[in-house]
């Protein structure tokens, strides 16, 4: 018998003890993971989803409300389904889907709830409520989806949907969780943080079977959900509904603004869709249909569609020329139709008449005076100075820059720069004759309907505008975002507006906008027939009313509807009548618009 053996045995035993002590030290003292894992085991977070804020119109009518809806949750460890077929029948799913969903949930966690079926409607819930007791491991969580009592304003209001993986990754505030809803477009997106409220979290302790064992830390860490703030929109529901009716079946936009405040009374994108179809369980299906529609109803035309301004732009040209003092208000300029194609009769025009008759040659000459002010003997260099000066004015009108409206992704349109022509023609290789089509609102200039409505408001205000916005007030604060209370001066003396306004009044009284004429309301406007190389011209109208103390400024574009004096002027006039008098008496005009046969 060797004596070393007893020593070796003891060393072996001590070695095992030391290994255990070290291992225990590492998992009990040196690591925090197990403590967290133990908490994670027992804590069940019960999310209390807040009510999303409602949206009213300016008169208090509800535009957006919440509709209760239910998610079916599953805790795989608890599940006991005796009759899978019955279960599947109840929810209208097949067995493969059931198994797939169950496996997904189990892969996520056996003891934590995960969503099994999303967005069960109120009616469906009522039907299954009693039967659900037979299926252990499944239960219901209340949520809500948006509902639109009046199916209007789809693109402006936007829609709400489940947060995407990408959005989650970009969320630096770490507020959102998988499965949360988030405003994806329109007001829902731009006012997301105000509308969403604050999620409430209750922490419960559960045992391994998911059975509740009481509050975690006596509920000291629990938070209540805080409902989102309600919004008051600047929209007038009556006008909105009427305007959408008028634009139904057409492709185009309408924007009506209260000039004194910049509040958008109505904003129409046509064709549109019923916003109710982008809520609830059919969301993705319907979204697919909408996004494949060739008329692109998801395209928010009033702020995203860009057109040449056309003749409306002559108002700006006149104002710039007056401000720059290159013309006098009463100065007569001969227009013979030789410089540029023209529908106005040959003769002498002052600025007022030039607007009334939309004289292309007049504005050709006026624009030439703006561009060539003799700053330099070279016409090439002179044009550079002129264009730069001209552009500075135009930009102040909110063209070529994005108007900071509270609907996401407004387009800036385009006002060509010196650099642009340098790139196209080469430096000092272009002069007035290369850019003259800008004079009549054609050429490279592009504007959005919103910008044109804002132009109407600026002219109505005689020289300033408030940035157009669609939300008047958050809850009872009564005021919009402070940036909408800033007065934007366009740098034209108010005295210069009179001639333009008078000309615009005449447009409606006797010029191209006669369809907008009303005996009781002095409407000022300017039509555009926007040249469209791809098809029939676009019909455009920009104006405001009444002439004294303007209440509404409006811009309408109807694509491929020909003359501005027909579709766009008619629609504008009807909306103005509806807004200012509350009713439309000119049913013949209404019928003309609804028939939509503008091209003859």
């Amino acid at each position, binding site marked *: 018998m060797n004596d070393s053996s007893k020593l070796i045995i003891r060393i072996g035993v001590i070695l095992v003890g030391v290994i255990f002590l070290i291992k225990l030290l590492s998992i*009990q003292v040196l690591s925090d993971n197990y403590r967290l894992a133990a908490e994670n085991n*027992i804590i069940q977070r019960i999310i209390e989803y807040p009510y999303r804020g409602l949206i009213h119109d300016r008169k208090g009518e509800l535009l957006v409300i919440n509709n209760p809806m239910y998610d079916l949750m599953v805790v795989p460890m608890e599940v006991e389904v005796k009759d899978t077929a019955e279960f599947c029948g109840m929810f209208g799913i097949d067995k493969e889907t059931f198994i797939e969903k169950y496996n997904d949930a189990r892969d996520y966690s056996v003891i934590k709830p995960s969503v099994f079926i999303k967005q069960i409607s109120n009616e469906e819930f009522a039907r299954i409520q009693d039967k659900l007791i037979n299926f252990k491991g499944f239960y219901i969580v209340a949520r809500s989806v948006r509902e639109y009592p009046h199916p209007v304003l789809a693109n402006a209001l936007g829609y709400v949907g489940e947060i995407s993986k990408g959005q989650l990754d970009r969320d630096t505030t770490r507020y959102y969780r998988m499965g949360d809803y988030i405003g994806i477009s329109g007001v829902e997106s731009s006012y997301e943080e105000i509308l969403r409220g604050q999620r409430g979290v209750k922490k419960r302790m559960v045992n391994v079977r998911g059975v509740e064992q009481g509050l975690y830390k006596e509920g000291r860490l629990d938070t209540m959900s805080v409902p989102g703030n309600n919004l008051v929109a600047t929209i007038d529901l009556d006008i909105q509904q009427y305007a959408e009716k008028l634009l139904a079946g057409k492709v185009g936009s309408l924007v009506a603004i209260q000039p004194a405040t910049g509040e958008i009374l109505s904003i129409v994108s046509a064709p549109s869709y019923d916003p109710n179809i982008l809520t609830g369980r059919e969301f993705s299906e319907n979204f697919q249909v909408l996004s494949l529609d060739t008329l692109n109803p998801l395209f928010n035309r009033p702020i995203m569609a860009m057109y040449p301004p056309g003749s409306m732009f002559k108002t700006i040209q006149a104002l710039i020329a007056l401000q720059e003092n290159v013309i006098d208000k009463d100065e007569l300029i001969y227009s013979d139709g030789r410089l540029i194609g023209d529908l106005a009769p040959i003769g002498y025009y002052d600025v007022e008449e030039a607007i009334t008759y939309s004289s292309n040659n007049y504005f050709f000459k006026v624009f030439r005076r703006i561009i060539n002010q003799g700053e330099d003997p070279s016409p090439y260099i002179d044009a550079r100075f002129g264009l730069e000066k001209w552009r500075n004015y135009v930009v102040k009108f909110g063209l070529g820059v994005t108007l900071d409206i509270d609907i996401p992704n407004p387009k800036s349109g385009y006002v060509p720069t010196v650099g642009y022509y340098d790139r196209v023609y080469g430096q000092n290789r272009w002069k007035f004759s290369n850019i003259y089509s800008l004079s009549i609102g054609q050429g490279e200039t592009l504007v959005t309907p919103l910008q044109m409505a804002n132009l109407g408001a600026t002219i109505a205000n005689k020289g300033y505008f408030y940035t157009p916005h669609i939300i008047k007030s958050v809850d009872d604060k009564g005021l919009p975002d402070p940036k909408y209370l800033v007065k934007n001066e366009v740098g034209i003396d108010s005295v210069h507006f009179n001639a333009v306004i008078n000309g615009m009044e005449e447009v409606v009284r006797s010029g191209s906008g006669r369809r907008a004429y009303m005996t009781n309301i002095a409407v000022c406007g300017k039509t555009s027939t926007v040249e469209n190389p791809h098809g029939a011209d676009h019909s455009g109208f920009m104006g405001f009313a009444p002439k004294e103390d303007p209440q509404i400024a409006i811009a309408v574009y109807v694509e491929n509807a020909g003359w501005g004096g027909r579709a766009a002027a008619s629609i504008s006039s009807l909306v103005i009548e509806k807004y200012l008098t509350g009713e439309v008496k000119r049913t013949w005009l209404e019928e003309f618009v609804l028939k939509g046969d503008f091209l003859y």
Partner: protein
Amino acid sequence: MRRDSNILNNIDWLTLFIYGILVIMGWLNIYASVYQEGAGMNIFDFSLNSGKQLVWIGSTIIIFFIIVTIDFQFYESVSYILYGLILFMLIFVLLFGAKVSGARSWFEIGSFFKIQPSEFAKFITALVVARFISTPGFRFNSKRQLVMVSALVLIPILLILLQPDPGTALIYFSFLIVFYREGLSPLVLVIGLLFVMIFISTLFINQLYIIGAIVIIAAISIALAEKTFKKISSIVIIMLLTIGVTFSVDYFQSNILKPHHQKRLRVLINPDSDPLGDGWNVTQSKIAIGSGQFWGKGFLNGTQTKFDFVPEQSTDFIFCTLGEEHGYIGTSLVIILFIFLIMRIFTIAERQKSRFARTYGYAVGAIIFFHFMINIGMTIGLFPVIGIPLPFFSYGGSSLWAFSILLFILLKLDAHRMQIFVR
């Protein structure tokens, strides 16, 4: 030699004291593991595991006095009879035992009284092995005697494997320590260890790779060794034997080891491979112990145990309750107590004059050590999940009785060590 008038004066009280501490700690932890908050529970409630365990603990006092009273030479003399009896019971339980979780290990007498013969087979095997080894003229060098002493251990192993209860069977390999102490060549231990390594590696590595590795090792050995016929042939024979082992292991795995045992072995290496199935137990057990941190969550405050995340909390996974509620303070104390107890037992064994008592003492130490190593190793993820109790700690009458008897007989023998005349 003078015989002390009172046997109790010769009892090793230190061992009994540590035993007592472990039993009481075990009892408190059994209560903690069945405790439900707000249920108005009482630790003495006989419908609870803690109340039942108290009955078992109380009865060990009676057992102690019975064992102490019986003449010390009785244990040596009845060992073969007891051995015969327990083998009979192990066969009997295979035929008539109650099937509990897939194994026939239990006799059920009435609804309350259950008894597990394989628990008692441990101390009886210890007695019989000690008796056999203490036979005059016994030498491990004798192949016949080696085969016979091995058979004494292998027969109960075989019967217990048939139940099947591989965990308990594994404990019998603790006799290798006894054999080693009593003169068995350490080569056997090394080969045993090699066997375990090959066994585990075949679970993860393709058999062909292992055979390849063996052949390469053999080739290198031949290259380095003296090139005599004897050396080369013996290396080749060892190589062939080892390869044979891999095949037998393969056979053992697929025919004897049940799929859930194979899985548990795999889970040991990578608990994440099956986090919700067999890995669940290991993961939750580690979470329970780890979440106790340094000071523990406090008595009856363990959430892992209270909310049933840990399986078999009062029996095989009792160490989790301790780790969670009493932290590193508690676990290290218990480990030190166990190591101290095992050391004390080896010391007692070494001071015996008779070979029987010494061999028996080593068997006691080795059996407790194996339980300690496998049970705690399992709860902290160092050992596969094998359902064996933590001595003195785990809930269960059979196991507490068996361990108590195992220890008390040693104390009785030790008390009389001065009366032995060296043969």
